[in-house]
């Protein structure tokens, strides 16, 4: 028997699966591994390939942003009945002007990052474009939190 639903309009959806990863700043050596681990979980859960692709693009950008610009982050991936969701909370320099950071082509990447093919100013726009819901909050010299999700239907 299922318990009777609680009559609460802001009731959260049930979390079917959740896993938290830690990402370390400057850890280029492992850049992309969290996104790969999440992709593998989504494949095992039988999630549609277009959803996997969109969330994987967003996850890679999010992970590389932490590696390039933050000290460390907690990256929480959850599967809900209607969506796959990520909350990535980092500790670091933060973003003084979110409007600028969201602008395509704007980047604070160093020369070294640019030599590796980063710094196109597409990271945050790629996350936004590949998610159905996207929120960003940042406090300079404290850190940045991203919340984004892709709908399953």
């Amino acid at each position: 028997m299922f318990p009777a639903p609680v009559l609460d309009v802001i009731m959260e959806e049930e979390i079917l699966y959740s896993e938290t990863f830690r990402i370390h700043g400057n850890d280029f050596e492992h850049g992309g591994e969290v996104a790969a681990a999440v992709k593998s979980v989504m494949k095992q859960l039988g999630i549609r390939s277009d959803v996997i692709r969109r969330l994987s693009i967003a996850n890679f950008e999010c992970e590389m942003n932490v590696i390039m610009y933050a000290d460390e982050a907690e990256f929480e991936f959850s599967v809900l009945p209607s969506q796959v969701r990520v909350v990535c909370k980092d500790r670091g320099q933060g973003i003084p002007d979110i409007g600028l950071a969201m602008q395509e082509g704007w980047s604070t990447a160093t020369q070294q990052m640019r030599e590796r093919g980063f710094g196109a100013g597409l990271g945050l726009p790629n996350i936004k474009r590949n998610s159905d819901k996207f929120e960003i909050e940042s406090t300079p010299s404290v850190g940045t939190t991203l919340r984004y999700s892709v709908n399953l239907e």
Partner: protein
Amino acid sequence: MKVQEIVDRLELKGATKIFDKDLSGVYISDMVSDIIANAKAGHLLVTVQIHNNVIAAANLVDIAAIVVTQGKLPSDDVIKMAEKAQISILSTTMNRWQVATKLYEAGIR
């Protein structure tokens, strides 16, 4: 078209083992964010960027194989990573434009 056919037609050198995959098209770029957002599953990626983060990005979007141009060679770690992901890395001394024209001549549209 198969990866091996492109290797033969363009006289590419396998830096990794050559994995038997079908190619669905080509994407040419050196910017990682552009590669991950725009290269499609089954694509042949032509690039000069060959480091572990590019392999990770390629694997996330199911790129089939990578042609690395201008004589650049991947490190041993990158080769290992690509082989684990079953992505062939093919090297050439040609530049990206020369590779593009040869791919076109080979019949890839």
